[in-house]
């Protein structure tokens, strides 16, 4: 019987992989369901096991099962891992994703699984923390805080009870790496969390997954049950979110696990000192924890050997939106934005020119192609007025209206704000109103309060566009420095970058900063 591999990743299923798997099974093939290789243009992808290795075909329709099995299907790709999109990657974290049966302990072990945990357990906890420090790994959720330092703080915190919490509330549009890993290689995350438990002295872990990821929830729960005896005495539990984007912020995530409204906590105290249930808590992103098994099995230095500046190791970059080769591309830091979007991504899917890319989700900046030479690096992106975030890149073609996207950023913030701090709760709504007036070209007259005699600094007559934009910048400043967390604090990034790079979309002929100075 011919063995064939078909992905059961949610993205592949959304493109019809289940029907293809059924048709192959009906045609007599032995179907193994895997995670996704990560190039969605090829899904549903079928790989057929032959004496020369796996031969890929994709995309395949369910009616074409027989053509795939006799090798005559026209969409023959040959060895998928040798395709340029895959050959150019450095897959440290995603080495097994798309290759193995995600829930097979035998497959996991045969492909290097549990070696990191075995190595960690042979070390004293402090030595395991030191390995992570040596790797230079920084938080992959977006903030880029050194993971080893965080672990050290929890390791040093006194107390008999500590927790490991995995943030799998991947709500940023344009990102799907956490989902792919949990669906395609769940034991890798479990291993990383068990290593963290050993390193800091925690015996219990929680994985908080958003409810929009039903496939990942199912796969993780099953994987936890199967691996329970291997990671014991470490115990893991999946907790499911309930549609609140703000719960991706670490302190509101902790409150959500505790059974409360997902409101952001003021820091300090840091979660590392007083986190879940008031105990010292390591809270890391899926990708941070999933990078740990490699670091422990191959050594921190091997991980740190590639990268750029203070950004060490690899980043699973996600190419999304209007892009031809959309998917997951894991590569060392330092590759330029232009290489990612144009060379690897292949430009837009619509064939039109790229107008803007948004890096880092709804809170990330919009960049024009004129700064595509920017290297993928935490510091370089911060200096350019943006952020890497969770490394999602959303591509837009020239039909996009950037004033509309700036408005959407404010609207999204207003929709998702937890309501605890004023700049985010009220500022976002004022922002929507301001941008609406700009788009409509309305001139708002002074209101009753502004006309009071004591309001000497208020603008008397209808505000000019330049004055409205000055007000918008002032509002962004207040949100950026006055908000409790990144939701209100980073919403100004997409708004200001749209203003700075695409002033013509806001109805200004000249760059808007100079218009405001009139």
């Amino acid at each position, binding site marked *: 019987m011919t063995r064939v591999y078909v992905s059961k990743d*949610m*993205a592949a*299923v*959304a*493109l019809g992989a289940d029907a293809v798997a059924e048709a192959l099974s009906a045609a007599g093939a032995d179907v193994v369901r895997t995670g996704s290789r990560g190039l*969605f243009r090829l*899904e549903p992808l079928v790989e057929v096991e032959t004496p020369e290795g796996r031969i890929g075909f994709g995309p395949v329709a369910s009616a074409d099962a027989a053509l795939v099995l006799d090798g005559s299907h026209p969409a023959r790709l040959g060895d998928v891992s040798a395709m340029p999109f895959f050959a150019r990657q450095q897959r440290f974290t995603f080495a097994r994703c798309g290759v193995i049966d995600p829930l097979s302990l035998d497959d996991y072990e045969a492909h290097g699984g549990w070696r990191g945990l075995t190595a960690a357990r042979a070390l004293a906890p402090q030595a395991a923390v030191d390995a992570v420090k040596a790797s230079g790994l920084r938080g992959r959720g977006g903030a880029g805080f050194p993971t080893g330092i965080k672990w050290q703080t929890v390791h040093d915190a006194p107390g008999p009870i500590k927790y490991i919490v995995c943030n799998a509330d*991947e*709500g*940023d*549009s*344009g*990102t*799907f790496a*956490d*989902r792919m890993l949990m669906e395609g290689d769940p034991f890798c995350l479990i291993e990383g969390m068990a290593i963290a438990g050993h390193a800091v002295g925690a015996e219990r872990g929680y994985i908080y997954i958003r*409810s*929009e*990821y*039903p496939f990942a929830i199912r796969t993780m729960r099953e994987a936890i049950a199967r691996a329970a005896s291997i990671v014991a005495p470490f115990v893991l539990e999946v*907790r*499911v*979110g*309930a*549609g*609140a*984007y703000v719960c991706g912020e670490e302190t509101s995530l902790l409150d*959500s*696990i*505790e*059974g*409360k*409204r*997902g409101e952001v906590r003021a820091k300090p105290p840091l979660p590392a000192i007083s986190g879940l*249930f008031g105990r010292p808590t390591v809270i890391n992103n899926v990708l941070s924890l999933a990078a740990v098994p490699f670091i422990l099995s191959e050594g921190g230095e091997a991980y740190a050997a590639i990268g750029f500046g203070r950004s060490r190791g690899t980043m699973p970059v*996600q*190419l*999304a*939106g*209007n*892009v031809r080769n*959309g*998917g997951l591309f894991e590569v060392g830091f330092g590759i330029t934005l232009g290489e990612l979007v144009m060379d690897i991504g292949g430009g837009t*899917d619509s064939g039109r020119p790229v107008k803007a890319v*948004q890096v880092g989700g*709804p809170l990330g900046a919009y960049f024009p192609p004129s700064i595509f030479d920017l290297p993928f690096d935490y510091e370089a992106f911060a200096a350019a007025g943006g952020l890497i975030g969770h490394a*999602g890149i*959303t*591509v*837009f*073609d020239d039909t*996009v209206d950037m004033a509309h*996207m700036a408005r*959407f950023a404010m609207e*999204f913030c207003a*929709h*998702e704000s*937890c309501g605890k701090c004023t700049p985010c709760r009220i500022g976002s709504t004022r922002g929507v109103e301001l941008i609406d007036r700009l788009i409509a070209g309305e001139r708002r007259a002074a209101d009753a309060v502004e006309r009071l005699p004591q309001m000497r600094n208020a603008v008397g007559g209808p505000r000019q566009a330049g004055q409205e934009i000055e007000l918008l910048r002032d509002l962004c400043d207040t949100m950026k420095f006055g908000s409790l967390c990144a939701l209100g604090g980073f919403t100004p990034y997409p708004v200001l970058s749209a203003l700075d790079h695409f002033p013509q979309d806001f109805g200004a002929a000249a760059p808007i900063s100079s218009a405001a100075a009139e």
Partner: protein
Amino acid sequence: MSATRNDRSIAGDATHANDYAAAVARLVEDFGDEQNALLPMLHALQEEFGYIDDLMVPAVASALNISRADVHGVVTFYPDFRRQPAGRHRVRLCRAESCQARGAAAIERIATERLGLRMGETSPNGRVTLDAVYCLGLCATGPNAMIDDVPVSRIDPATLDRLIEELTR
């Protein structure tokens, strides 16, 4: 909400309250009786009854030894928890940036026209609920939707017509 409550007799409310109390007692066995059981319990109640009835709130509060205000606050904070029954089928269209970059706004416009519903509404015959979702993590193959529990990618007007036809038939 008010329509549902007004239709019920006091005796009907009591029957519902008893059902809910029994369900909550069962769920305490699974999730424990501490506050951190609240979200798992609400998810399970919604799974079983289709929505979070206001009459469930006292039972849950008492089982977890927290105030009714705490439970109400959580139910109303999280968008997933519905306080009214949804339609028999749920269509959730993604509205986030990556799907916007691939034409989601046009798909949303067509869906609202074909179904005669605004986002967030349920059809009068209780057949379909149309909702927005902010990202399903399928960001390279949008526009995306979840039709009940089935994800669908690369939705174009023709696919949309076929899906709506299947749901409303």
